[in-house]
């Protein structure tokens, strides 16, 4: 049985999307491989004069690159960053992030919808980072989003699935892939999201702030796969009282 994640017509076997921030270039390859990730996010920043190490040299060539528009405060800035990223010839996937709030780093859903519409029309596979709101998710889909990326908790917080109930509504109502992004702190939380039926989980800080980063990547990869299998298997029912697991007949004293 093939169970692939399909984003904008592109199939993926892994449901673990890895953020590449906060750890050294030397271990990027090990982290990607240990986690089994097939999509890795990147940011676009000013280059320095005089040459410098290039993160692209450390990412295996079979990986789909997902540049983000971090740093954008408006739809217009996000569109510009996306078009610059595409000029580097690394594909047409883009994670739209529009953030005006520096304390919680919450996405500006309104500007995100505007950027999504422009970029989708321009041929991008648009994956917007969003606050989990059903109306916004519908607007994003109508604007051409190939997936939606609702936050679990503030970026980098490792707080876990704070928005669980609202993400579950998106799972039930939205047809494009739902990718939980931001705030997941433990593999068990990633697993829980996958059990709930989200299509993929993105992690960065939870991996990057572990003591053993490659091993934590592996743990997340396993948890995400486990949660997916549990979702496909269908979770068992919940009772309020006990129900014996062993037969209630043929006791030795009968």
């Amino acid at each position, binding site marked *: 049985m093939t169970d692939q994640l399909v984003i904008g017509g592109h199939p993926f076997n892994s449901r673990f999307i890895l*953020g*590449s*921030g*906060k*750890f050294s*270039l030397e271990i*990027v390859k090990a982290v990607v491989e240990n986690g089994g990730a097939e999509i890795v*996010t*990147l*940011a*676009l*920043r*000013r*280059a*320095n*004069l*005089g*040459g410098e190490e*290039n*993160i*692209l040299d450390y990412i295996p060539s079979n990986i789909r*690159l997902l*540049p*983000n528009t*971090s740093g954008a405060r408006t739809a217009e800035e996000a569109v*510009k960053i996306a*078009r*610059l*990223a595409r*000029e*580097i*010839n*690394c594909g047409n996937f883009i994670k739209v992030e529009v953030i005006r709030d520096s304390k919680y780093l919450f996405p500006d859903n309104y500007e995100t919808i505007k950027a999504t519409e422009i970029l989708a029309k321009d041929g991008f596979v648009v994956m917007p980072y969003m606050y989990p709101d059903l109306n916004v998710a519908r607007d994003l889909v109508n604007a051409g989003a190939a997936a939606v990326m609702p936050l679990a908790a503030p*970026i*980098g917080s490792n707080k876990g699935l704070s928005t669980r109930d609202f993400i579950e509504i998106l799972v039930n109502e939205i047809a494009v892939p739902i990718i939980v992004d*931001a705030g997941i702190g433990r593999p068990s939380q990633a697993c829980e999201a996958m059990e709930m039926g989200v299509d993929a989980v*993105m992690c*960065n*800080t939870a991996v990057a702030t572990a003591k053993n980063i490659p091993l934590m990547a592996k743990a997340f990869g396993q948890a995400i796969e486990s949660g997916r299998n549990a979702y496909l298997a269908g979770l068992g029912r919940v009772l309020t009282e006990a129900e014996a697991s062993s037969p209630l007949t043929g006791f030795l004293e009968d």
Partner: protein
Amino acid sequence: MRVNGKEMTLGNSQSLLQFLEVNLFDVTTLAVARNGEIVPKATYDVVMLDEEDTLEVVRFVGGG
């Protein structure tokens, strides 16, 4: 000329490609906006720079 927020003197007449190579930028893995407009990579060798230009030269770094 202003490059990534810093003042630089252009000196001789140079194409964008020459400027990037002289300053050891890795042309294959960057993108350039000139005066706010994205410069298509195929035109780097014919875009002649001006002392009044503002360039943004960007590349990928780690990020979520």
